[in-house]
């Protein structure tokens, strides 16, 4: 009965949103998108190096957040191990550029590939876990990888690797590489979600057993999402490593990368396309405002994370969308039905 009532509410909501002003003006949204992209493309022409570096970092965060969003927000697989993909990507680029003299662009592509392959390999054991077991399993895996990298002399052990400066692009090129990655990460999500496997993803998120009974090949769908997600995180890691010029296992495999991705997605809005972008803007603004108080900044981030989960389960964007009566439903709303 409750379920039926919810469904009728959802239906009325969707009817209402069809009638709302904003959804009629869909061209306005496209125009807005074009304007934002144009502004971002032209930014390096006018901005100072600090701003360029800041926005570049935001691109990397958006990519990482979208990568997590694909599995966490849309597939319902709460990964606590995304640092592993990011770190593997960073190490792949570092190793290829340092020891094999590979150029920057092929090296970061290889980073995405290596992270994907790793995701495929671990998917066989890790997909046996569901829900919280999956969360713990991924956390354990990424920590195991970190300890291995700290001890493995082949990858420079705890010292890490210094990348050759000569082969890396200039900051402006990095800006555009990051820009491209953020667009690709978001675009891939759009593509995946409008494909048949994309519907399978959300079906799995809402009820995995039911999805399987309905003929969704849950393993393949999850694997695809996981591999794509890992690829994006790997690309981000590769670009980050080249930008930084030096990497070491403690920070590059640090759980902090996973924390950043999860914070961003949850605060912005899990299972939405715009959420991770809003989340990145929000967290970056917060960290810029408190940049002289790193520890307090993280405490406040934790508090905000908890407040959002408790009082704003759809995230900033999800809530905003409800107020503006835009169509679409987030992970949490879908599950309540």
């Amino acid at each position, binding site marked *: 009965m409750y379920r039926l009532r919810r469904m009728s509410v959802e239906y009325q909501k969707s009817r209402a949103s069809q009638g709302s002003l904003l959804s009629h003006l869909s061209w306005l949204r496209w125009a807005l998108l074009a304007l934002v992209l144009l502004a971002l493309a032209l930014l390096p022409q006018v901005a100072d190096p600090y701003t360029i570096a800041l926005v570049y970092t935001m691109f990397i965060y958006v990519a990482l957040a979208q990568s997590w969003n694909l599995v966490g927000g849309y597939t319902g697989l*709460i990964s*606590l191990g995304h640092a592993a993909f990011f770190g593997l990507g960073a190490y792949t680029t570092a190793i290829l550029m340092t020891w094999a003299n590979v150029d920057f662009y092929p090296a970061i592509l290889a980073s995405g590939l290596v992270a994907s392959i790793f995701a495929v390999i671990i998917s066989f054991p890790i997909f046996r*876990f569901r*829900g919280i077991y999956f969360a713990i*399993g991924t956390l*354990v895996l990424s920590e*195991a990888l970190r*300890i291995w990298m700290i001890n493995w002399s082949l990858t420079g052990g705890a010292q890490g690797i210094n990348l050759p400066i000569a082969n890396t692009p200039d900051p402006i090129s990095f800006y555009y590489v990051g820009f491209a990655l953020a667009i690709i990460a978001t675009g891939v999500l759009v593509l995946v979600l409008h494909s048949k496997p994309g519907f399978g993803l959300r079906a799995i998120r809402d009820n995995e057993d039911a999805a399987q009974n309905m003929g969704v090949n849950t393993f393949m769908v999850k694997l695809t999402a996981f591999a794509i997600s890992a690829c994006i995180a790997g690309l981000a890691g590769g670009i980050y490593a080249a930008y930084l010029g030096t990497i070491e296992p403690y920070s590059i495999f640090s759980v902090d990368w996973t924390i950043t991705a999860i914070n961003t997605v949850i605060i912005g809005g899990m299972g939405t396309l715009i959420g991770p972008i809003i989340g990145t803007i929000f967290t970056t603004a917060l960290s810029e405002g408190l940049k002289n108080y790193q520890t307090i900044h993280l*405490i406040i981030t934790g508090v905000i*994370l908890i407040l959002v989960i408790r009082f704003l389960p759809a995230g900033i964007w999800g809530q905003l969308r409800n107020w503006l009566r835009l169509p679409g439903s987030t992970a949490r709303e879908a599950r309540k039905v």
Partner: protein
Amino acid sequence: MTSSTLLAGAISGLLLGGLYAVTALGLSMVFGVMRLVNIVHGELLILAAYLDFTISGALGIDPLLTALLLIPVMFLIGYPIQRWLLNPLMHQGMEPPLLVTFGLSIIAQNLMLLIWKADSRAITTGYSDVGLQLFGVRVPLLYLVAFVLAFVLIGGIQFLLSHSYIGKAIRAASQDARTAQVMGINPEAVYALTYAIGAATAALGGTLIGMSFSFVPTSGLTWLLKGFVVVVLGGMGSIVGMLGGGLILGVAEGVGAAITGTGYRDMIGLLIFLAVLVIRPRGLFGRSRE
């Protein structure tokens, strides 16, 4: 590597297993009763270690006695977390409460960083460096103390669960919250109590960590992961199983570190964890329910 280094690893590992069991106890209780993965458990342990470090240092009391003082303190820290933060989210599936404990761990870590700075600390006493001979192997006295205390604490918790009204209420709520509610048990209160007891066990666990190892504000993750391994080895939610899980992990780490070198020590448990879960996704002795 000789057989004597292997034996040394095995014996000190076995004794250390008691400490592992204690540090995993709270994690196991919270998981067993609420099906909640308490990510902040590692930070609760390290917080207790810091509190013990500061209090025993300032007052000049023995750290193990200070741990007794810390039991109510940790209880009072744990209770409101479940009562007001986690309980309202318990009906929303497993992920929201998990993510809240994740947020709490970020907060706790950075609060400790703010208060105690990033310097590595250790709780030292007059008997910190005392060793004794066991089967021809020299082991720290502290490991033996931890081993004995583990049996006492786990026995005590097991007794509490099986013989007291509170314990029976906790077990009832963990088996079937709805039926327990019909029987007049308030699951929300039971959950808060369970969480608080779990946090209270961290008083002893954290003190033992602080006395046996050095720690920094970010050490929580290491101990959380060790806790996961123990919980999975010992059976999810089983109290006495924690002893078994702790001892297996201790011996595996001791022997493994003797073979591979100490750098890989922390990785051994994690690999065991993954192997066990791949073979038995519900844990080695786990009950077959979600």
